[in-house]
């Protein structure tokens, strides 16, 4: 219960901002928060988290907020890598061969979601393969 007290503001924000499937529980000294919401609310929650636990240093919270659950096939996605090109792979893991690349800020199309980490995408040049969702941001 102490952790729910520490992250009270975060939990209240999650409750009021509208997080679907919100699931909050504590186990072995770690608080787990799961749910789905919009990108803006996810950002708000993470900023609150960082304020309550600077640099996320305590390691007492695992927050898994999915902001891409509602993204549907055919959605345009922008490549948001830090600097490099985005690899497009034959299968949904880094062990699979690279079959193409998408440049930073290029817009690609979601074909389907293999899982939360890997999506099958298609570039405007017709290259198709799996890319890591971390580097794909849905265009609103």
């Amino acid at each position: 219960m102490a952790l729910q007290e520490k992250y009270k503001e975060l939990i209240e924000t999650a409750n009021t901002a509208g997080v679907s499937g919100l699931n909050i529980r504590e186990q072995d000294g770690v608080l787990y928060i799961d749910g789905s919401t919009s990108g803006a609310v996810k950002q708000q929650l993470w900023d609150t988290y960082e304020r309550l636990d600077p640099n996320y240093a305590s390691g007492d919270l695992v927050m898994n907020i999915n902001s891409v659950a509602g993204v549907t096939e055919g959605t345009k996605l922008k490549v948001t890598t830090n600097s490099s090109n985005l690899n497009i792979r034959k299968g949904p893991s880094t062990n699979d061969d690279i079959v193409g690349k998408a440049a930073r800020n290029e817009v690609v199309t979601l074909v389907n979601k293999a899982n939360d980490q890997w999506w099958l995408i298609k570039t405007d040049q017709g290259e198709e393969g799996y890319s890591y969702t971390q580097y794909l941001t849905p265009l609103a």
Partner: protein
Amino acid sequence: MKKSMNRMIAALMVFAVMTAALTGCKSKPKDADLKAAIETALLANPATSGAMVTVNEGVATLNGSVADETGKQAADRAAATIPGVKSVVNNLTVTPVNTAAPVVVAADDALTAAVKDATKDFPTVTATVSDGVVTLKGEIQKANLQKLMMVLQALKPKKVDNSQLVIK
């Protein structure tokens, strides 16, 4: 005198029995019908579906347990609004059900592979996985920390330990 008295008593008794029978037929739903109606109402609401009801002479008694006080009151109202229910005895207990899904921690092999993919874009960070705990070492720009933590915490780790990570 005695005879007419007896006749009068008899007449009164017949009247009383008839009145009772008539009013009984007219306005008192059977307890079983009330019970069925209340049960239907209770089952319609997930918050009250754990409640059980018995009805005796129009008095509904609620037993069992519901998850919260709201459910307890909702069950009370649901029973009280059924026409023919005279009163409600609410014996419901509130037992918070742990509806939260259990914490699922990814298996180390899958987690290790996922962590490797996730940290690829942060070459100055090294990550190891043991018993679901992701331990980060090396260094990272503060501006990138949130992004890294967002990605790692989405992989269903037991915890993410960045106490050995140098944040610049």
